């Protein structure tokens, strides 16, 4: 551990392998992977699905165990359980992920990016190979510390084994992950979903949308430049929510909101509250020019897919407009209908998915052109049988982090 005291000249590939050899091997893996990217013809990503991924996992852990138990004196295994191998693989994984963080992971025109597969790093052979080395190091040292269990290693085991489980389950689980989206219309049962490759999938149960609901915030007021059409107040920030009785200041204009109607349509000179599809919010505002005390009063509206918007021109340069209201909450009141004639009622909302027969059902979106009058609700169904293993890993790491906080706290000047 303390190699500064003993500095002995040693040759490359001499026992034990150090940082130079480790980076040499790691870089070799990456170059091999990039060659595979350039010359392999199959365009699809490498994934395993049940039962092969489960067999792979069990086989992999067994092999790691056997390697540690009976072959730990060999050069390769000794190297894999030592620090240079770990640090070099952490660094090289970091380098490849950094490429992913800089080059957009979408189809590209650039030849080099395309040939080397730098726009799909997560399924790039170079990444998979170096990740494999990373996981092998992680797996071997987890096994090592578990077999030589000591309470002082408890945090170590939680962190390393947790990460190993979360990563391997996440990688192998992609083959079994199902994500379907389903359009449901008010008053009609639906059971034909679409998968990630745009294939139709028939569900063993149907969804019946009783009601789709949107809660909106009030619209906002903005000062707009008449020539450019862009927001001319506070760099486009700090728009004010329209609320009856409020007074706001834009440059040298005082804007008072005399009245606000969330759903209204124009009748002659004024807006009246109605309860009709596509009726937009409207407000009556009085604008006072502070310089000359001139007052203008008018109704403005943000408009909707059915009615035009109305703004108020307050000077040569500026107009006051009302923005389209932002969505506060949207939810679907649904029934799940089974073939056995069962009927399960629930309300789906963003951040509040519903669990049913191994599926998690999410509120995904709606027809945003229709806004709150949408009678379409888009649901997402996700099945991830590997989730429990990933959660075990995540919770081990959370416990490990708490342990680490406690240990970090104990480091002091005189320790």
């Amino acid at each position: 551990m303390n190699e500064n005291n003993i500095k002995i000249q040693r040759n490359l590939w001499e026992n034990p392998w150090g940082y130079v050899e480790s980076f040499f091997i790691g870089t070799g893996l990456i170059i091999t992977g990039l060659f595979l990217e350039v010359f392999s013809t199959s365009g699809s990503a490498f994934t395993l699905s049940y039962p092969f991924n489960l067999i792979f996992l069990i086989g992999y852990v067994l092999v790691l165990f056997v390697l540690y138990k009976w072959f730990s004196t060999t050069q390769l295994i000794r190297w894999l359980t030592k620090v240079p191998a770990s640090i070099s693989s952490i660094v090289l994984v970091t380098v490849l992920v950094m490429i992913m963080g800089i080059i957009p992971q979408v189809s590209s025109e650039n030849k080099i990016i395309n040939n080397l597969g730098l726009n799909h790093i997560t399924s790039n052979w170079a990444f998979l190979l170096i990740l494999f080395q990373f996981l092998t190091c992680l797996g071997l040292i987890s096994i090592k510390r578990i077999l030589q269990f000591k309470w002082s290693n408890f945090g170590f085991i939680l962190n390393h084994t947790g990460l190993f489980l979360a990563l391997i389950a996440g990688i192998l689980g992609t083959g079994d992950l199902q994500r379907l989206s389903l359009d449901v219309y008010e008053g009609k049962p639906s059971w034909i979903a679409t998968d990630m490759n745009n294939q139709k999938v028939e569900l063993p149960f149907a969804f019946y949308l009783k009601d789709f609901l949107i809660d909106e915030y009030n619209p906002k007021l903005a000062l707009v430049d008449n020539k450019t059409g862009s927001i001319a107040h506070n760099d486009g920030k700090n728009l004010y929510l329209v609320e009856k009785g409020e007074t706001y200041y834009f440059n040298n204009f005082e804007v008072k909101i005399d009245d606000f109607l969330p759903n209204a349509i124009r009748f002659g000179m004024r807006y009246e509250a109605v309860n009709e599809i596509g009726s937009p919010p409207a407000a009556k505002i009085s604008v006072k020019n502070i310089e000359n005390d001139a007052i203008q009063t008018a109704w403005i509206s943000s408009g909707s897919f059915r009615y035009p918007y109305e703004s108020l021109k307050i000077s040569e340069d500026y107009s006051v407009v009302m923005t389209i209201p932002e969505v506060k909450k949207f939810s679907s009141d649904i029934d799940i209908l089974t073939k056995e004639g069962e009927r399960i009622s629930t309300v789906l909302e963003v951040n509040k998915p519903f669990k049913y027969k191994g599926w998690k059902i999410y509120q995904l979106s709606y027809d945003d052109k229709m806004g709150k009058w949408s009678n379409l609700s888009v649901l997402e169904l996700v099945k991830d049988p590997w989730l429990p293993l990933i959660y075990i890993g995540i919770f081990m790491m959370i416990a490990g982090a708490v342990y680490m906080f406690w240990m970090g706290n104990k480091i002091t000047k005189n320790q």
Partner: protein
Amino acid sequence: MTWIDFPLYSSIIIILWFIGLVFLAISYKKHSIFKIANVLFVAGWVVMILFVVKLWLELDRPPMRTLGETRLWYATFLPLIGFVTYIRWKYKWFLAYSIAMASMFLVINYLNPETYSKTLMPALQSPWFIPHVLVYLFSYAVLAASSIVAIKGWYDSYQGNFKIETLKLADNLVYIGFAFLTLGLLFGALWAKEAWGHYWTWDPKEVWAFLTWMGYLIYIHYRHFHMHNSKQALTILALAFVVLLVCWFGVNYLPVATTSVHTYTQY
């Protein structure tokens, strides 16, 4: 409309802290004055807390949505870290740094008036929102503190009087910061599963958060096995902080930003 009161509050805080820093500088000569500096720092911090509480109440949503609001939390956590570290390590320069850094963030916010919109998109309306953001910002503040220790270490070794204690302080901060960084990352994963259906989607912000995590992971492993290569350790620590800054501010400007769910809102 509390955000508009910000100039008033921030001026009071900065004046208190500035006078405190002057007293702290004098206290190197005359130690008894240090108490006055501390009283001023704490007074400024209390005003800061009052402002955050008032802002939260008036906005009617957690003030954690915009970049400016995250800077505000950063400026709130830094003095706390400074106080606690001072109590344990007795480094005045560290306390001075955290107060100066917090003031700097207040000034940045003062120069960039931010939104005080009350709206919050549905995906952010989750019990995970507050722990995810607070844990992250606390960790960022602690890790920023550790990077200042790295700079101090560099400066000291340039002057030829580097002490290994300095690296121990860095370790102390990195362990705490890294623990919170891990929690922030994992809380984010658990939340994403509830909100978007998957715990990890390689969103650009997630990629850079992962890189930040890996950066400090390299530091911790390197330190653990090479106790005496202090220069290299300090370099790794400084580089890891650069990655953290890219994650916090830089992602918005990278070519990958267009596909992120994490970009801070402007309106």
